[in-house]
């Protein structure tokens, strides 16, 4: 950590300096008759700070039946208490080839104590022979009763495509720093998309257990195991392509944020 900075809003500093330069009489005034009306005073405090956070929730190696998949899942936000710009991205690289990758750009608004409404765009990038897809996204993100971290989003794409994604996480503190994190994920599509190997209905589900150790809050390596399953026509597409429908994957990775 760098030295303690004693900082106020920069604009205020500049204004203060300007005031001093403009008015040498200020330097040794008595009892505050600074010649400025209260209208020009700064507020007693600034409670509208803009902050940001970049989260690499998963940066992991998945030992899949097709080989080692390097996978990322990250988010970032910038904003205040109520309004934030929110980015999400996930994707995987197998044997040097990007298998899947998407990016969401969302406006996020806190609507209740524990829930944010998020809306914006999602881009599925073209990977290999899978074409790109664009979606409009609307979702809910927050903490459900019993402390489930939930991210549920519905998508509307071109050509009448629709999709839904649900993720839920939970944390079990084995110790203050050793944390077990179960995760559930579902994807569903309203219309089949053979070009991307997707059938309609529930396409795939994943259940993962990750055990992380928080060396610092911001830096936690983990190991885990992940079960995935594809359903319906999506499973059929997988079979045709020689991919597994069920898979059990060992994962090792790093969770970090700053």
């Amino acid at each position: 950590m760098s030295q303690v900075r004693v900082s106020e809003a920069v604009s205020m500093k500049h204004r203060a300096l300007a005031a001093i330069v403009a008015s040498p009489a200020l330097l040794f005034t008595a009892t505050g008759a600074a010649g400025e009306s209260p209208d020009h005073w700064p507020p007693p405090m600034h409670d509208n700070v803009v902050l940001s956070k970049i989260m690499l929730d998963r940066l992991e190696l998945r030992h899949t039946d097709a080989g080692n998949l390097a996978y990322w899942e990250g988010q970032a936000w910038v904003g205040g208490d109520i309004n934030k710009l929110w980015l999400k991205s996930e994707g995987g690289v197998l044997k040097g080839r990007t298998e899947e990758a998407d990016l969401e750009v969302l406006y996020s608004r806190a609507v209740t104590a524990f829930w944010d409404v998020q809306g914006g765009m999602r881009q599925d990038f073209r990977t290999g022979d899978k074409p790109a897809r664009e979606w409009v996204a609307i979702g809910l993100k927050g903490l459900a009763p019993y402390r489930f971290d939930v991210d549920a989003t519905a998508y509307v794409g071109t050509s009448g495509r629709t999709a839904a994604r649900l993720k839920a996480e939970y944390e079990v503190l084995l110790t203050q720093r050793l944390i077990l994190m179960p995760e559930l994920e579902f994807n569903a599509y309203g219309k089949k998309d053979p070009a991307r190997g997707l059938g309609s209905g529930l396409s795939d589900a994943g259940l993962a257990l990750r055990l992380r150790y928080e060396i610092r809050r911001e830096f936690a390596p983990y190991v885990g195991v992940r079960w995935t399953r594809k359903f319906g026509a999506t499973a059929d597409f997988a079979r045709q392509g020689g991919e597994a429908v069920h898979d059990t994957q060992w994962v090792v990775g790093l969770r970090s944020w700053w």
Partner: protein
Amino acid sequence: MKIRRNGSVLPEPISLQRRRFVQGLAAGGALAGLGLWSAPALAGSGPGARPRELAGTEFDLVIGETPVNFTGRPRMATTVNGQLPAPLLRWREGDTVTLRVTNRLAVPTSIHWHGIILPNGMDGVPGLTYRGIMPGETFVYRFKVGQSGTYWYHSHSGFQEQTGIYGPIVIEPHGADPVGYDREHVVLLSDWTDQDPNTVFAKLKQMDGYYNYSKLTLGDFIQRARRDGFRDAVAYRAMWDKMRMSPRDLADVSGATYTYLTNGSTTAGNWTGLFRRGERVRLRFINGSAMSYFDVGIPGLKMTVVAADGQNVHPVTVDEFRIGVAETYDVLVRPHDDRAYTIFSQSMDRSGYARGTLAPRAGMEAPVPAMDPVPTLNMSDAGMSMAGMSGMDMGGMKMDSAAMGSANTAGAAGENHAAMGHGAGAMGAMNGAAGGHGAMGHAMGGMDGMASAAKTGGGMMEVKHHPATEYGPGTAMHASVVSTRLDDPGVGLRDNGRRVLTYADLHSLDGWLDPRDPGRTIELHLTGNMERYMWSFDGVKFSDAGPLRFKHGERLRIRLVNDTMMEHPIHLHGLWSEVESPDGEFQVRKHTVSVKPGHTVSYRVLADARGRWAYHCHLLYHMKAGMFREVEVL
């Protein structure tokens, strides 16, 4: 500790000493030309050191940056006259004091005289009472001192209160002091972090519980399952998780980043106050922390509390007291033995402690007790009624044991109290159930219990109404039942085998400032959302709220209802807060009123000073998040 033949102490290793000397010299050199300075600075002073004292009616205070080192890592502090804490200011009641405060920082600063009744323009709150003190500027405060006792002063700008701008004020009474004593020491407690406070604030907003390393874990679950059975343990966990609250939400910022200081000394530095055997020693405790409540005891000594927030109270003898941020307590101790005593100040969340020593000679030490176990909030701390809890698929009595256990089981298991030197006596079986003053005891009593409790100093009160503004993102909890009792020692102190001070013990020597009944009651709810780190009154943060308007001369009541899981020290500038007993009688005059979770407190205010006054939670990061209002007396 090294002791020279003549008994004086070599205070610090030479390297440290030299660095501090050099720092002091540098600061002194810079200031010498102004004739403000007479001795080198000693930021972070060692054993036997006293906060430097300035007395009289004319004061020159220079705010600047001073290098300090509390943890082995050098940091820059903001200081007054190069000292941390700032110099003790000794005033006399009836005098008019003049304080010239010069800002040598690159940013604006300010000094607020905490608890001092003075004209609005002298109160030192940037944006309300003046513009603040700009870099290079000198602001001259001048006001008549109309009170006596122990107070303090601190910056009201940015996070400067966290980075070192705080110091004691002692005002000697004009007439005879009703408190007799032979010697006095100021004991100023504070919290220091090597992190930039802006970073601390950001971490709190970025991650719920960032500094909390006392969360309930699997181990706690197993312990509970062994004691109460698996079903109860699951139900207990589910009850809290359903609310998305943590029963270990005791302090936002903890010993994970804080080093706790006694008069600017670390525990290793061991600030020492001297006494002669048999003397009556007056200790003037001040909590100058940014965020930390302390539970203070001196194992082996009884403490007689004689003043609270500078105001004399009828003496009450205790083993321990909890001091909220910005509160002051004066206590008398009378050490009869030729031995050292440890002044032990553990943070409320037990993540660390400050330590000092009282000794007949410098260099002596007494054992430092182990900290008490980490306490756990119970459902009544969360403002939950039995009705609210019964909806959770649990039998009534089982629920009692589940919720009850939380308050004191840890205490029963830990057995650290003996170390405090007061004996572990009463801390046996299940505590709260028998303990008449635990809020839990009354919640358990059901309706009958409430009725009887009401006759004996308060009881449970249903919260019938929450402001409509409390249903936004900033408010995570709404208390349904709160305690009006002042005699609850609070979480972690209930039935710990020690006599613990409560507000019910505090009776000011003076009475009401005005005999009139309040013409109206302003009810304000203390609100927050730990998950988002939002804090406010009535769910509305400062920048979204207009001022509270008082009519000049009016007598009114403020009722605070705590809708959070935390204790909040609420400070009204410029006007006294006269705390009412649960039945509306006069209790104690204070400048900072601490409201426990699951509680409500009422106090009367005489709006006899015009101007724009600050009104806020004195937990610095809560204030910065918006738990702040302007009070305008028109």
